[in-house]
């Protein structure tokens, strides 16, 4: 029983993380008809920006707080990431740690949001309605910006720590609950509710849904639909950035290939959940997260191919997604 609870929590946490990634992709695809192959790069930038700013801020705060603190090993290339050793027995107060964590998240997500704005203005703008060109151009962006990460922070992987206040493990009965996983599930749920509200209740959701059906009418009543598209794209990017920022502390190891591998996971979710459907990507993420943990537990050898196998089967037998939720617009 305890193992099952542990597994379910782990699976849901994985699912929440995949959801952050997949929902942005799915919203952009469903609302704008744009397929973003650079999503993994935005994820990666979110992760690296988070790690870099978290460590940079924490180093300065700790050095100012304790005279006896010593900086420890550094990683990176042009920009470096340097840990800090607190004096024995000392800790930063909870609020300070929380503030550092939140500040790093805000910097990461804000940076990726701006990247999204720039990408939309520079590249995506030119290829609305031309799916092959979208694939080619975003794929190029993916490759170039992933290599820029390697130039800035170096190509080698390096280990990082979780924020101390999220680092614990609780034992309830026989179940081991990793606090960070619970945190991820909560973030995923909150984000899901917010997005759902925005899509169904807010003005921006209304405008975009209207803009899809009849852009001319929307423009005729004086709404700048292009600006809305820019914002939606950047918001999708920011979601990927948040996913990346929360992913790095989870795995505890920063690798520049994480962007591509997580992008593929998000693609699988989008296909399994039904192209362009927000609800589908929500359910698909949970499904994939739970399945991944289950397979890693029972048949670890299969875990690499299982996801792709699922996607292939879904495409062959249920092209509208496992839940039949595909948005027809998304081609």
């Amino acid at each position, binding site marked *: 029983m305890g193992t099952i609870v542990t597994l379910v929590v782990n699976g849901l946490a994985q699912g929440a993380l995949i959801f952050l990634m997949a929902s942005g992709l799915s919203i952009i*695809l469903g609302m704008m008809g744009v*397929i973003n*192959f650079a999503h993994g790069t935005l994820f990666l930038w979110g992760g690296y920006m988070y790690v870099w700013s978290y460590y940079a801020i924490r180093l300065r705060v700790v050095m100012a707080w304790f005279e006896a603190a010593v900086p420890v090993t550094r990683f990176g*290339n042009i920009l470096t990431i340097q840990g800090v050793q607190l004096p024995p027995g000392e800790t930063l107060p909870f609020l300070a740690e929380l503030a550092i964590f939140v500040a790093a998240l805000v910097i990461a997500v804000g940076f990726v949001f701006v990247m999204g704005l720039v990408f939309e203005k520079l*590249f995506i703008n*030119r290829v609305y309605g031309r*799916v*092959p*060109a979208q*694939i*080619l*151009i975003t*794929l*190029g*962006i993916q*490759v*170039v910006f992933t*290599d*820029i990460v*390697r*130039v800035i922070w170096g190509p080698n992987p390096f280990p990082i720590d979780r924020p101390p206040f999220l680092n614990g493990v609780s034992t309830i009965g026989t179940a081991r609950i990793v606090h960070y996983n619970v945190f991820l599930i909560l973030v995923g749920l909150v984000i899901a509710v917010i997005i759902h509200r925005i899509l169904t209740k807010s003005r921006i959701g209304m405008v975009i849904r209207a803009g899809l059906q009849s852009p001319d009418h929307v423009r005729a009543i004086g709404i700048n639909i292009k600006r809305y598209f820019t914002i939606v794209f950047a918001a999708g990017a920011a979601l990927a950035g948040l996913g990346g920022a929360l992913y790095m502390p989870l795995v505890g190891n920063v690798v520049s290939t994480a962007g*591509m*591998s997580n992008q*593929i996971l998000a*693609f*699988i979710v*989008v*296909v399994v959940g039904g*192209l362009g459907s927000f609800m589908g990507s929500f359910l698909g993420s949970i499904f994939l997260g739970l399945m991944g943990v289950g397979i890693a537990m029972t048949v670890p050898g299969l875990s*690499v*191919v299982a*996801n*792709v196998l699922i*996607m*292939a089967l879904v*495409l*062959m037998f249920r*092209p509208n997604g496992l839940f039949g939720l595909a948005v027809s617009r*998304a*081609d």
Partner: protein
Amino acid sequence: MGSNVRLSFDKKPELPKLIALAALITVFLVIPQFMRNTQLIMMSRIFILAVYGMSYDILRGYTGFINLGQAIFFGSGVYMGVIFLNMQNDLWFFMMAAGSIFVASVIGGYVMSKIVLRTGGVVAAAMVTLALGEIVRNIAERWRTVTGGQDGLPLRFSRVALEPLFTTRLGAYYFAFVFLIVMTFALRAFVLSPTGRVLQAIRENEQRARFLGYDTQKYKTIALIVSSVAAGFSGLVFAVIVRFANTDYLSITYTLNALLITLVGGTGTLYGSILGSAFVTWIQNFLLDLNRSLGWDILRYPMLFVGSLYILLVIFMPAGLLGGFFQLKNWWDRKRLSRATDNTPEA
């Protein structure tokens, strides 16, 4: 989709063209005598990657289907070539490798078409093929006993492959050149065949082709299989030249190479791939040389430059360098023409 520039396949080759072609082939048969080894290797790579580019063009240029897993077939070709030639380095094992690659590519292409073509959408197809490619690369990286993992798999026996046939880089050059000529004629024949014509009809208007009674799925499957076999063969010959297999050849990097080659040469032109391959290979070689002499850190990431070039091409010259050149020329001609008419004094 499809480009505005298409080299005409319809006309029968005329005598001047044939003479020009013969002259060109003669030049390429003679010049290697005056080349250094590094240049010979580069030329051989250009020839082989041109075939790889053509294999991609059959798909993207003639059916509009974007396969982001093309490197699976190319990389598998390289691996199978190295594995077979490591057993015994002679022509028989080369032929056996070719046979196995043929069978594997046909099966692989068929399976891929079953997964990908069912939904019909370009988006789903691109997403799935990208995922398939990454998974295959991932498996190759883990399957160390066969593939050597991340260290790669070198050709063990000799300095140059296929002992009885050639023992020098010069021989490998001629081998690659003959391979290019044979594959060009074979793929040209395919494009000109009734099947190829139907594919072009599908590219122009799939719905219409379907209404005319063609089973478009079947034709696309054929195109995918032909493309994967050609990619596999080019991988095999590539193994003879580079004498090394690693997971890079299976990765998205090599799919992007194919995309870039067809983009530079212009999609749907087939021959454009030769030009594209020359350009892309030369640029990558140039960056490597520059890295060797300058030692700049940033030059260790050739994809940074190649990828940027690729983005610029997609934005500004979707018809390829050749196509872009013709567009410029058209624009210039029109401008000159209009200026000429402006200047004519009115009677």
